Each structure stands twice: as structure tokens, then as C-alpha cells.
């Protein structure tokens, strides 16, 4: 990548306008205004609770936020500048549409679904690389084409065939033990948001009967495996009693005949509009993905004693999903265009309660893959990702973005350190966003990170002696933090440029410092 210097000029005037408006660079000056039914429901409830919503975030923050939340990618300095200079009143909605149509949308959400569906070639799932690649491609293609969610799930649940040629069959291969009861548990967790540990055992058994005939057999091709409905499955006897019945989680009995694949009947029941679990689980997940925590939290822990904080909002989104024909992007749009989503991260209400009830946008650490991509984008660097088994090793080409990695076995020490999901459980919480000392050590001081900074085109660009300190500050802030610097920050940068040993040393230290701010490492 060649160093790209930014146009400097109009921006200097701009930042005074921007920074004069609010006390911090994160918040806009106007108060929060509901923008539709969703906001009315949220704000009403907040009022009942005595909580004032936070004012909207600044445009720069909105831009960075929506990029990270929708496509897992940092905006470039040019994209920041273009958006901030855009005078169209509907520019926020237009931006959301552009992002939903980007290729990175499919990359990023295939990554999330890869966690939930445990897409991993090696231990302990042992998909085998070909199958992991095929499965990932199927997931990504489905998301890219915005496949209706009911169809997406039905295909996963009812597929039969080869793990290489009929990718959704890998859903069953990713379940530990591959027994009917463990399949039932995985189905309930993934598509109903329910942890079956709290279920009575006969309810698990009743659901397990739906998967009693799922069987697996090898073929002549190396590591190929066929998943199929086997009326004579040796497992069936244990799970299908003499009365040959499955019992669905709502108590409905299902009569099983060996000729009919009960997975189809289960899928019919699952995706029905009046199924209380199916739509609630997915809209709650989307809410949690965009707003940091679920209306029901954890987002995969629906149970009677863990009610949603805004029940009406959950119902509204479920209704909207069904009405839109299970169009997931419709739910994204509703949330992303809301004033609720656009609140500043700096709350008016007391912090803890504001966070729990969505009276502000909650700050959280970037995921491992997103952080590493952002770091590489800012420094113009690339990483390599490998899977050490089976031999010969898999090595992804240099420049591969981490959010596009198809397989949990293909990884790097950075991704492991920053809490990438091990893809063992399918739980949302398996991806760890908690900061640790080891992570701070790495970002502050590891040779990998320091080398990226030292060799970056950004450092090269701002080391030019003819650049004035305000231009340096602006370039750095637009590139790393996706906003213009405040007056205080301008002064700090100018002072540092004067006191450091050389322009280059100062540039390295400044890039290092901005990359190490909480603001860079978190979405906010």
C-alpha cells in the first residue's frame, strides 16, 4: 500500500464547528428525538423507569460505529471526510444502505455465524478443512443474498448429503458427540436461544426423537461423509419409544413413521410465525450484536426468570421480522436507523442503569478479528493466518482480512490472545471481549505491533517536515480514530512534535499512542 496523504484545507474550519458544538467529541448538541415506533417503545419505557436517553452521538462517531457494527471494518480517512462533508439530511440512512450492501457485511456476519455454528476444521469438531470451507461459503453466500431466515434455518436442519457437496449438513457434524440428544441441545441453543440444562430431561428426550434417525457414513473419498435420514439408524431405538413419538418443546406430540424424516416436521414447527422462541431468539441476537447486550441477556439464555428489559420492543421486532418475510436486513435497518441506536456512549442517566436499559450506546472492546484488521488498515500492514494441521499446513495469503477467515482452526497468536471464539460451545459468550494485561502488553509493546507502526505509510506520511502540526494531527485522527481532533488534542500533538527527538520518532510515538487509546480499541 502506498502512503496516502489527505487533503488538508477545509477541515481546519470544520473541526472548530464540530468541536464547538459539544463538550466531548462523541456527542451531538441536540437532544434525543424518537424516530419511529421502536424508539417510541424504548423511550416510553425509559420514561417509566425514570431514565433520560443519551443525546445522539456526533456524526463522526456514528460513522465509525456503524462501520464497525455492520461490516466489522474501520472507515478510511477519505470515507470519514466524505461523510462529514456530506450535507444531505438523509445521509445516515443512505450510509446504512451502502454498508448493508457491502461485501464485508457478508464476511463479518459469516464470522459471527461461524462462532454459533462451530465452523472449525480441527479438534474437537474435526470438520476437515474442505468441509469447513464449503460450510463457510454456504453461510456467507446465504447472508450475502439475504436468504430469508426461515429458509436458512430450514436448510440447515433438513439437509442430507455430502459434507463437501451439501454444506448445510455440516450443522449435524458440528455437534459434539453427534447423538440425538446433543443435536437437540444444539438446535435449542442456536435457534431458540434456550439452554437445555434447565429443561427437564424428558423435554430434551422428546426433542431428541426428532433427530433419532440422523446418521453418518463415510464414502470412498478421503474424509467425505454423508449425513442422511436412516430409518434403520442404530441410535433410533434409544430415543424413539415403542409409541414412536417425538414431543416438541411446547408439548405438541409428533407421530413418527420411518419413511418420513421427522426433521422436516420439526423445521415446520420451528419456523412457524407463532412459535414463541424462533423469532424472539434471532431478533434478540441482532439487537445484542448491534447494541452490546440482548433485550434478553445473555442473548442465548431465554427462560421465564430472565425476562426482556423492553418486552414490547422484542415483540415489535418479532412482528416486523415475520411481516417482512423473515428478512434479516429489515431488522438491521429498523435498529440502525433508530434514535436508540444513535445515542451517544456518554449517558445522561446513571451509567449502570443506562447500560442495562439502553439509555446510551454501550462501549465494548473490538473483537479480535476486527481489532487486528483495524490495526492493519491503519498501519498498512498485513498478517498471516495458518492452521498447523493437517499437514500440509493451511496458510492464508498475506493481506487476508481476519474477518474473512473461513475456519476457526485458521488463526494467529493475536487472534487467540484477544479472545477469538474457540468455537467449541456455540455460546455467544465464548467470544471473550474482556481486556487482559496480556492483551495490553501486546498492544503497548509487542514487536509485532511496534514493527507495524514503524513501517507504516502513515508514519512515513506525517514525518514529512513540511507538514504543519495541525495537518499532522488531523491526518492521524482521521486515519486512526475516524474523527477530527479537538482543540486540546491539537495542542498535545503540536507540543509533542516539538519536544521529541525527531519528527519521525514523534510520528511513531503519536501513532502508537492513538492505537493504544481506549477509543481505538473499543466501539463507542
Amino acid at each position, binding site marked *: 500500500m502506498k502512503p496516502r496523504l489527505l487533503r488538508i484545507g477545509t477541515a481546519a474550519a470544520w473541526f472548530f464547528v464540530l468541536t464547538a458544538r459539544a*463538550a*466531548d467529541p*462523541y456527542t451531538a448538541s441536540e437532544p434525543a428525538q424518537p424516530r419511529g415506533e421502536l424508539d417510541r417503545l424504548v423511550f416510553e419505557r425509559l420514561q417509566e423507569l425514570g431514565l433520560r436517553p443519551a443525546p445522539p452521538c456526533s456524526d463522526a462517531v456514528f460513522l465509525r460505529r456503524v462501520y464497525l457494527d455492520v461490516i466489522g471494518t474501520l472507515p478510511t480517512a477519505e470515507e470519514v471526510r466524505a461523510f462529514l462533508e456530506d450535507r444531505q439530511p438523509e445521509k445516515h440512512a443512505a450510509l446504512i444502505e451502502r454498508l448493508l450492501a457491502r461485501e464485508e457485511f457478508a464476511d463479518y456476519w459469516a464470522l459471527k455465524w461461524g462462532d454459533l455454528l462451530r465452523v472449525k476444521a*480441527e*479438534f*474437537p469438531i474435526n470438520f476437515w478443512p474442505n468441509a469447513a470451507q464449503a460450510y463457510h461459503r454456504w453461510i456467507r453466500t446465504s447472508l450475502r443474498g439475504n436468504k430469508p431466515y426461515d429458509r436458512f434455518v430450514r436448510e440447515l436442519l433438513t439437509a442430507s448429503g455430502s459434507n463437501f457437496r451439501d454444506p448445510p449438513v455440516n450443522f449435524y457434524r458440528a455437534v*459434539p*458427540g453427534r447423538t440425538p440428544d446433543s443435536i437437540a*441441545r444444539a438446535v435449542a441453543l442456536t435457534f431458540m436461544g434456550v*439452554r437445555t*440444562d434447565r429443561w427437564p430431561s424428558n423435554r430434551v428426550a422428546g426433542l431428541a426423537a426428532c433427530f433419532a434417525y440422523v446418521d453418518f457414513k463415510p464414502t470412498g473419498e478421503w474424509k467425505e461423509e454423508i449425513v442422511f435420514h436412516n430409518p434403520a439408524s442404530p441410535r433410533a431405538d434409544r430415543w424413539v419409544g415403542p409409541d414412536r413419538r417425538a414431543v416438541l418443546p411446547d408439548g405438541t406430540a409428533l407421530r413418527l413413521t420411518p419413511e418420513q424424516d421427522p426433521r422436516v416436521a420439526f423445521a415446520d414447527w420451528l419456523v412457524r410465525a407463532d412459535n414463541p422462541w424462533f423469532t424472539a431468539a434471532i431478533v434478540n441476537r441482532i439487537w445484542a450484536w448491534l447494541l452490546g447486550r440482548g433485550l434478553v441477556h445473555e442473548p442465548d439464555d431465554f427462560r421465564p426468570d430472565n425476562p426482556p428489559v423492553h418486552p414490547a420492543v422484542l415483540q415489535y421486532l418479532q412482528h416486523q421480522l415475520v411481516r417482512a418475510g423473515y428478512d434479516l436486513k429489515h431488522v438491521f435497518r429498523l435498529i440502525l436507523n433508530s434514535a436508540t441506536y444513535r445515542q451517544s*456512549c*456518554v449517558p445522561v442517566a446513571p*451509567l*449502570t442503569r443506562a447500560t442495562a436499559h439502553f439509555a446510551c450506546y*454501550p*462501549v465494548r*472492546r473490538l473483537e479480535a478479528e476486527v481489532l487486528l484488521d483495524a490495526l492493519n488498515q491503519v498501519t498498512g500492514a498485513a498478517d498471516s493466518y495458518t492452521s*498447523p*494441521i493437517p499437514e500440509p499446513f493451511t496458510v492464508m495469503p498475506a493481506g487476508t482480512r481476519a474477518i474473512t477467515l473461513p475456519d476457526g482452526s485458521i488463526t494467529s*497468536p493475536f487472534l*487467540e*490472545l484477544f479472545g477469538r471464539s*474457540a468455537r*467449541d*460451545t456455540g*455460546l455467544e*459468550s*465464548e467470544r*471473550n471481549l*474482556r*481486556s*487482559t*494485561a*496480556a*492483551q*495490553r*502488553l*501486546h498492544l*503497548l*509493546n*509487542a*514487536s*509485532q505491533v*511496534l514493527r507495524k507502526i514503524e513501517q507504516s505509510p502513515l508514519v512515513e506520511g506525517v514525518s514529512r517536515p513540511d507538514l504543519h502540526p495541525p495537518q499532522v494531527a488531523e491526518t492521524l485522527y482521521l486515519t486512526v480514530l475516524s474523527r477530527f481532533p*479537538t482543540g486540546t*488534542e491539537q495542542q*498535545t500533538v503540536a507540543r509533542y512534535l516539538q519536544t*521529541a527527538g525527531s519528527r519521525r520518532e514523534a510520528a511513531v*510515538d*503519536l501513532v*502508537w*499512542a*492513538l492505537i493504544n*487509546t*481506549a*477509543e481505538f*480499541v*473499543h466501539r*463507542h
Partner: protein
Amino acid sequence: MNLKDLLREHSLRQEASRLLDALGLPLSRREMLRRCLFGAGGLLLLNGWGLRAAAPAAVARARSVIQIWLWGGPCHIDLFDPKPEAGRDYCGPLDAALETNVSGIRIGQLLPNLARHADKYALIRSLTHESNAHETASYIVQTGRNPGSRDVYPAAGAVVAYFKGGAQTGLLPPYIVLTEPQGRFSEAGFLGSKYKPFATGGDPARPRFEVEGIVAPGVSDERQRRRRELLHQLNTLGRSLPGDATLETFYASEEQAYELILGEAGKLFDLSREPDEVRDRYGRNTFGQSCLMARRLVEQGVPYITINYKGWDTHKQHFQVMNRKLPELDRGLSALLQDLADRGLLSQTIVWVSGEFGRTPRIQWDPPWNGGRNHFGRAFAALVAGGGFKGGQVVGATNRTGEEVVERPVHPAELLASIYTLLGIDPQARLPHPEGRATHVLPGPEEGVGPPRLLREIM
């Protein structure tokens, strides 16, 4: 600006904290966190790495474990279970065994130094499991369980970090790997990523051991301080959003990181502080210096150190590799055992040497192997010393060719149960599970099987 705001300005924080103390005012949340993490009292509850110490189960005889992991699978009959009588097809050129300083115990001929320390260690010659695949076997040996259950269990290092992580190790992480993580399976299992080992990176045999993140090449302490100050000045988000729990964790981690970068704790990794004579004794190679580093970490009370010693997967050129590696192992391990003993640390430090399996005793002479050995889980050997394990002992035996266990078969879970017991960790203790399921350190009655037998004969 009120006093609480002052606290958030790093440069003024300590001063403000003293002022608050003097005034007897309540401490800010951040200050509380700082004290909890770094104060002397805080360490008892929560060590610097955010790990809570679980209640000790029983009397602990050992305090630390040094796991020397011979990644790839070392050949048991070339190391700890020699079979010189089995002939050329089994022994190749290594057809003599060495008598040790304990009569009746012989070891491989390329381990002359270790032969003088047999009174310090026990050899387990009858380890066995059913896997010949690296990752599955690694999992079995380090978790004591077969894969395929609903859960991925934590490896021994993560289990020990969980139970002993509250030990007084100051800022050092409780589970450290020299120098690279094993990588092929999740060491932490369902305990989650915070129980993963801290991997040092770098190479302790280099003039400067550049521990990844702690020792940065080419950045002076003075420049580190200047950068840190700059970082604090540019912390606009932190100043706009005081008290946010996510950010507080971030800042607390940062303070801790700086204690290692600029404080005394980080100096521990400076091996140039050891006399040359000591460094020479361990061998001036990565493995030897890793052993020395492990001793320094044990002195600080770090409960679990893994030396991930690679290069034992010798499908080809087996004997060439053995001629190179065994003298390295012999020298480093002998120096470690002697040094620990001299310092009175061996009695409280378990040294555990093994790989994930052994290698086929029968040599593959045909191309493309040309004198190689394959994976062999059916029979393999381990060395254990210290921490309550008796020296000068042998457990179990294999047949004339080293292909079958013929006496006292030992499953890896039994060895792990013994190690845990010596550390004061109940092998049947509960482990926290993300879904709240009842999971235990090792299989036992609550999972419908008998508990693993302890290796009483050497404890």
C-alpha cells in the same frame, strides 16, 4: 475540577490518592480497583491477572509444576525405557543403555547426565492411551479425558491456574509457556481465554530475552515513560466516560502491563542477571535457557510453567535428530534438577517430562522414512520429579520390544490425578462451567466412573 476528577488524571493520581487518604475520604471506584489489583491485601483475593483463587482442597506438598512438553512425541525406548536387547530393528544405532546412580534403573545412552540424577526422579514406563493423532493425544495426556464429550476440558496448566492462580506471584501470570503456545488445541477449554497461558515469545538463548510485550526491541525505558505520558494526555474517551466498567478493566490491565514493562517484575526475564557459569551449565540453547528461566519463575511462585520443547515428531531422520536433541535435553534437564535441589525448591516443584505419545519401537527402515519412527500411543514413558514424587523409582513396564504395556498400565488421568493431589487440588473438585453444568477436574463417581487411581507407589 473536583477531587474525583483529579483521580482520573494519571499524572496526578497518586498524589490525589494520598490526599484522599489524608482527608479520610472514600476512595474512587478506580482507586479501589487499583488497590484490589496491586495492593498487598488485594493479592490475596485476586491476583494481578484477574484470576480468583479457589479454595485449596487439601494439604499441598507441591507449589509449582514445570511441564517439559516434548511436542511431537519422543521415542520412549530411546529416552526412559531402553530396550538394548531388542535388536537393530528396534534400537538402530542406539543399542546400549546406561546404568544410573540407582541400581537397576537404566536409561537411554544419550542421557549420561540424567543417569547421575536417577535418585531425584521416577520413570513411568507404562503410560498408555488409544490415540496416535497429535491433537487428540495432547488433549488426552493434558486433560485426562477422551475427546468427544459435550465439553472441551481445560489442560492441566489452566486447571492449576484456576486453583492456584491466587498464589503470591505478584504481577506474574500464573500459567506461562516458554516460548510458544502449543496451538493445536485450546489449553483453557471451557474455562475460557483468560486461563490460556501467557506465551513469552522471544528466545531466552539470545543476548536479550525479548519477552513479547514486556521487553520491546529498541525502546528505552525513558521513551516508554514519555509514550505513556502521551497516551494519558490523549485519553479523551476515558475522561468523557468516567466509571465505565469496560474501560476500567482496560485501564487496570494497562497499569499492570506497565508494572511488567517498567517495574521490577519484568526484570525477572533478564537472564543476564544470572552468572555465566550457571547459564553455561544449563546449555546455551533455547531449551537449556528455558529451563533456567523456569527455575527463576518457580522461585517467584509461578504455579505452572510449560516449556514447549518442539521437534520430537521424527518420522524421518530419527537418529540424526536424537543425536542432536538428546544431549540438549540431558544437559538442560539435569541442570534444572540439580539447581532446584540445591536451592531447596525440588521438594515443592513437580517436574513433569513427557510428550503426547511415544514412537513406534520398530524402526521404519523403508523409504520414504529411511529410519524413522511413527506415532505410538499404546505405550510411552514419562519422567516425574520433585514436589512429593519419590526419586529412584520405576512404575510399570513394557515388554521386550517396548510395544506392549505388561505391568501396571497407567492412564494419563492417573498421572494428572497424582500431580493435582500433590498440589492440593482435589481431582474431583468442581470446575466452573459457562452454562453452569456440573464439571469436574477429572472423571469420577459423579460422572459414573471410578476415580483415577493415584500413583501411590511414588508419592
